[in-house]
């Protein structure tokens, strides 16, 4: 009986397994091979050993792109989580209006990233952008977000908050799952609202927070669309002095503009390694910070 169940399970799973093997696992493995070759897509790959990997360490643009990406991720992820959490807490208080606001917060997520990139150039224009106009109302003389190299990444971070909607929904669901009696007990113990947030809410929603952090870190390390559209897209001569040259943008240039697919594959493997290391560090740290209800530690 057990064997029959296993067979049935495998049968039902087989479309996914085949799809995964053909469209994910095999290409990943093969890109490992390509990373050891000189390959321009049009002609056969020529094996060159670890030359592409050696070149990674002597290419100043790899270091620049990696630095930009890590900086962006390091600033963007905390900002993203804080804003998402703040909005989720507000939504929790919103009562009946919560449904309306959930939809409103999620709507920007439906906007194509390419459109967001163009929107960025309009909203954040140092001369005529709406964002600086808003800052001007409170007496702040906004910088040139799209043309001053020092402000390009902070601008992109702010713009990325446009799509916090789905994180807000996940955190809102987690917040609603916190048992009310815990808050009652905390109140009886004299805990104020800040204490209740730090000692009850955050530990109880820490798995959701952890999920949001991990997923956004990976997305941050792979950021591409908005920055590419705004600063590197076809016919776009917007200048940023490479302040917006993120790692995947440079990878894309190597693969499809310079036709160095072998080198781009090596770059992809380096990024994979970095993502694995960062995620592993997050997993280790999470053991101390994430509280799973009912789990033995």
């Amino acid at each position, binding site marked *: 009986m057990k064997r029959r169940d296993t067979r049935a399970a495998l049968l039902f799973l087989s479309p996914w397994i085949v799809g995964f093997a*053909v*469209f994910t696992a*095999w*290409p990943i493995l*093969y*890109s490992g*091979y*390509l990373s050891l070759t000189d390959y*321009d*897509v*049009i*002609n*056969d*790959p020529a094996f060159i050993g670890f030359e592409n990997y050696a070149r990674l360490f002597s290419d100043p643009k790899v270091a620049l792109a990696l630095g930009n990406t890590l900086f962006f991720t390091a600033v963007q992820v905390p900002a*993203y989580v804080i804003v*998402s959490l703040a909005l989720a807490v507000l939504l929790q208080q919103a009562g009946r209006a919560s449904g309306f606001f959930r939809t409103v917060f999620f709507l920007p*997520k439906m906007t194509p*990233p390419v459109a967001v990139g163009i929107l960025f*150039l309009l909203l954040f*224009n*140092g*001369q*005529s952008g709406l964002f600086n106009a808003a800052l001007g109302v409170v007496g702040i003389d906004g910088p*040139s977000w*799209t*043309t001053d*190299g020092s402000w390009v990444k902070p601008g992109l971070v702010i713009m*990325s908050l446009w*799509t*916090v909607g*789905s*994180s807000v929904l*996940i955190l809102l669901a987690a917040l609603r799952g916190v048992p009310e009696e815990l808050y009652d007990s905390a109140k009886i113990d004299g805990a104020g609202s800040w204490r209740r947030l730090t000692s009850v809410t955050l530990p109880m929603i820490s798995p959701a927070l952890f999920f*949001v952090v991990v*997923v*956004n870190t990976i*997305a941050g390390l*792979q*950021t*591409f*669309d908005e920055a*590419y559209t705004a600063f590197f897209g*076809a016919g776009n*001569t*917007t*200048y*940023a*002095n490479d302040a917006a040259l993120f790692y*995947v943008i440079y*990878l*894309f*240039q190597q*693969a*499809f*503009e*310079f*036709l160095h697919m072998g080198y*781009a*594959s090596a770059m*992809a493997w380096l990024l994979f390694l970095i993502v694995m290391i960062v995620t592993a560090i997050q997993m280790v740290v999470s053991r101390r910070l994430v509280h799973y209800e009912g789990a033995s530690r």
Partner: protein
Amino acid sequence: MRTPGHHHPLAISTAVGAASLLALTGCAVGTGGGDDSGAEYSSDTTLEGELSVMGFSGVDEVATTRMDFAKQELGDGVEVKLTEGELDLQQFLSAAATGDPPDLIYANRDQIGSLAARGAILPLDRCYEGEGIDDDAFVEPALAQVTLNDEIYGVPEFNTVQITMANADLLDGAGLSIEDVNGSDWDAMAAANEALTRSDGGSLAVIGVDSKLPEFFPLWARANGADLLSEDGREAHLDDPAAVAALEWAVGIYDAQGGFGDVKALRDSADFFGEGNQFASGVLGAMPMEQWYVNVLNDVSPDAPLAFDTVRDHDGEPIAYASGSAWAIPSGAENPQAACRWARAMTSVDAWLAAAQARLDLREEEGKPFTGILTGNAEADEQIHDMTTSGGEPWDSGVAAVYEVNEHTFSLPANPADAEFEAALNDAINDVLSGDAEAADALARAQETAQQALDDAWAKVEEGS
């Protein structure tokens, strides 16, 4: 939360993965170095089958009229399938990797060298000869851009050149004339820039002169006597002292206005294609700009106070940096004969004249002047020039400048590392614009990077030949 699926990396991974997969699964034939020895090109042959075209759209009457003409030339036996939009290199390469490329691509001429060097597109000598395409008919720099190692790989189409465009009211107000901003005297142009520039409460309100970096740097370099790339496409000359001086001067134009960032922000804030464009709204003194913008300005702000001239070198001679598009036939194309005939028909004098007439009719209907089309075909240009209609001044001067400068163009020769060459150059210019580097240092670094890329790419070409 941004899901990874919402991000391009997945698309890239998929594309890289798909290319990898296809390369290993038997469909992975690739097309590099494929030839068209089985094809017989002749203008008399009756053609049949399918013609798949990538990168071309029938966006306006100039395109659709010629398409109708080309379809007629192909005959009823050929079914044309268009993959519209600009040529997507990723899409084309993926198709080539599977051994199933389109029959014809419509590419920027600066992409032809790289594709030719890798064997992705066919040399067209037999196509030119069989279909009777006259290579002497093309504007010389256009043909040079599609010629690698003395072999022609594309059929040139459209030509883009720059002319000087200025705000006549601002010039008058500052006691200047168009000669002060046409590039013939750089000191005068720098002085005019300062005279025209206006600030309002500390921020830039009027751009005096926009030297249009980084895109038009080759124009200023050439005007100063520097060829950024040797005629054979093998030697970069980015560190030529004349190029360094040109970059210092062109960046100095921005520095005098508070820096490129301020100019760029104001430039980007203009309603470039609308009534509130920078000339109509009086926020730009002068700039070199491609000729198609004359048409836009005439369309949206016919009463704007404009003045036109060619861009000029230090001897006062007209000069323009030409670019444009071309037709090319991928290696492995199923129907190269039909592709060749389509390319011949689309670029023929008859097709261009029909397209010009269609535009002329439309412009007359709208009560607007016909300002011409630059085709890449010298004879067609001459005849279409005769068809242009007067829009009064300053528009007639604009059209005259376009046709005058079309006789004085240069281009960057085809080479197998064009994208890397351009990237190295733009990086250098951006470093100087941002104040991170001096022109000489930045261009010296770019020279090293570009030459290395050229050497590597040419070495592969030699290996393959």
